[in-house]
């Protein structure tokens, strides 16, 4: 039972960064934009989080700093895409590469020293905040006029422009907010899941997994939260698999395979019949 309890704790801790990054991205996608650079934003968040933690001493200030750093980096996406009409796919990918590279620059400045870690338990205020974030995002999206405006422009940008909705303002704002959350998510990974130590590749594709979870959660904050919890449990079971003698490298593969399988299952069940609520994932 002790083992089960620690597994649940680990699952919840894993779910926190996935949900933070995923909910932000879900809101952005509901407004009609996709930012593929989540992984890069999380990487910069992790590096800045550790560096800031070392210098500031407080993990919470470190999380804040990471969020701000990622939000600033997201201007590399917001300015070209939302203000200048560049292709959002390429810009997102470029942001991924730029963020990863920049994270290596920043992270190597930590010299391998640890920052004061977060304990990553469910008692952690960050876990509670994540829950509150999901609830708040649901209210915003489905119970406020701003949410109506977001969903409207995500359905048809052409109509939104014709009808005078505040398209660039809201999309830009959501992109920056989503980046802030992704930055916090990256820092949480470093501080709570890796004992405050940075290493290259620390985010391990979780940013991409978060993008997949947006789809699995069907672009609803509550859905993304649920998908994050399931994936968090899957990630936590790696140690369990290793205990049963499964090769570590193969156990590492499990979450990516699971997300791939889930995407496939979802496309087969829903893909042809149901239109994604966010136009960015629609194909003709």
């Amino acid at each position, binding site marked *: 039972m002790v083992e089960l309890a620690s597994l649940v704790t680990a699952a919840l801790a894993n779910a926190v960064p996935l949900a933070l990054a995923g909910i932000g991205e879900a809101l952005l996608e509901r407004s009609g934009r996709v930012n593929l650079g989540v992984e890069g934003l999380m990487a910069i968040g992790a590096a800045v989080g550790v560096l800031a933690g070392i210098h500031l001493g407080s993990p919470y200030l470190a999380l804040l700093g990471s969020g701000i750093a990622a939000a600033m980096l997201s201007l590399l996406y917001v300015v070209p895409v939302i203000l200048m009409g560049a292709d959002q796919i390429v810009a997102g990918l470029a942001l991924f590469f730029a963020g990863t590279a920049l994270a290596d620059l920043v992270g190597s400045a930590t010299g391998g020293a640890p920052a004061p870690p977060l304990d990553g338990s469910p008692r952690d205020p960050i876990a509670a905040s994540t829950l509150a974030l999901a609830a708040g995002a649901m209210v915003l999206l489905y119970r406020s*006029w701003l949410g*109506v*405006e977001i*969903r*409207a422009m995500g*359905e*048809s940008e052409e*109509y*939104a422009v*014709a*009808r*005078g*909705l505040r398209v660039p303002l809201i999309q830009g704002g959501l992109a920056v907010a989503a980046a802030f959350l992704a930055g916090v998510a990256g820092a949480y990974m470093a501080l709570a899941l890796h004992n405050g130590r940075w290493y290259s590749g620390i985010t391990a594709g979780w940013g991409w997994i978060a993008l997949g979870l947006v789809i699995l959660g069907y672009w609803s904050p509550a859905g993304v939260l649920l998908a994050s919890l399931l994936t968090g449990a899957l990630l936590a079971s790696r140690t369990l698999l290793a205990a049963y003698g499964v090769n570590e490298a193969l156990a590492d593969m499990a979450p990516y395979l699971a997300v791939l399988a889930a995407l496939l299952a979802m496309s087969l069940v829903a893909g042809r019949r149901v*239109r994604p*609520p966010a136009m960015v994932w629609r194909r003709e």
Partner: protein
Amino acid sequence: MEPLLEARGIWKVYPNGVEANRGVDVELYPGQVYALLGENGAGKTTLVKILSGVEKPTRGMIRLGRGPAPSSPLQAQRAGVYMVPQHPTLFPNLTVLEDIGLALRMAGIKVSREGARRLIRDASARYGLTVDPDARIEGLGVGERQRVEVLKGILVGRRVLFLDEPSTHMTPGEVDTLVSLARRLAGEGRAIVYITHRIEEALAVADKVLVMRRGRLVATLDREEASRDKVLAAMFGRIPGRPKPASTRPGGEVLRVEDLWVPSPHGGWAIRGVSLKVRAGEVLGVAGIAGNGQRELVEAIVGLTKPRRGKILLNGIDIGGLPPQARMRMGLAVVPEERLGWAVAPGLSVCLNTALPLLARNGSPLLLRRSYAKMLAGKVVREARVKTSGLDQPVETLSGGNIQRLVVGRELAAGPRVVVAMNPAAGLDYNGASMVESMLLETAARGAGVLLIDEDLDLLARVSSRIVVLSRGTLTGEFTPPYDVEAIGRAMTMG
């Protein structure tokens, strides 16, 4: 009396050099219905867009009451000026309440959900426009969507209300209701501008008839002095002649559709048991209001969607299981509704856009011979009189009329046995439309069967050998010349 809206010397030159408005003066007074008439491309829509703040004039002065011109649609809406668009721009994923509420808030009317619900209930009861505030837009038909748009117009356009071709998606009966609604709204002190290219409708609705031609306002007629002939003369500068259908004897059957059932992407059926035959040498017109299964019918015949049931025979051969390219190799030609993206691929040259579909039909081999492609494309461009600066010009830089000539020319150059065309003349000016019409007629005269699916009943009546009516996915009538347009209109509402 002060005009609600006053415009002087409006000029609009688009970046591509088109002069859409050339010195237009208008004054709109409360209590009046203005019918704005003109053929496609006369500049009506541009003028209305300028007056409602959507576009800025190149030159000219606009005054709203005593205030200056609105510089955005939102400013115009806050001042009570609103345009009901020709095609509804409602968000399918919202409810009626959310969509209207959003529009009210954009127009500066801060309402809560409940407040919006009250406004919608009151207005819909008062003007007889029944809508369910909690219905999702995607579940509504075109007619219902139009009602929502009009309701929104009533709530926002408290001073000046523009109705842009409001009868596009309406049956003759619905048009009558709309005309009396427009008169009632004017009676309450608004200025109503009713844009149309149908003369009868204009004469029925208007206190004043404004006629535009080639970017100018060429006539302002009072209701009493306006007559069909006067308006026609003003619209065209002369009474126009149109191509006549060739009187060839229809030959054997080239296309046969049997008991076709096509599911709708929104659930239910888009096509419910349609059967029809097209013979060589004839134009079979399919009349109906958009959204009654026209697009799905085209897609099924072309092979883009799989019908759930039924047969499609081309020259007696069942083509149901074949991909589109195989159907084209067997003599099918398609003039789709959308030009950019469906008929031609933007980003590719005029040459490739013309030659590739022809080469693909020849069962062409792996290699693409540039010189041969150029020759093929050059021939089509010459014969269809497409104005280009060269074959390497990207296709999207051509005007709409030129693209359509290119598409029709290309499809006919393949020597088809069957041509499926959907709204081929939509949005073209008089000359462009005439040319497309005569090209289709010539093809029929040369022995092909033409299936012409069009919203424009006048055009269908001019060129069709027979007309069938498609309504809610079924055929509700078949007509032969001389056509009883009223009966066709009634059939459009059945099913």
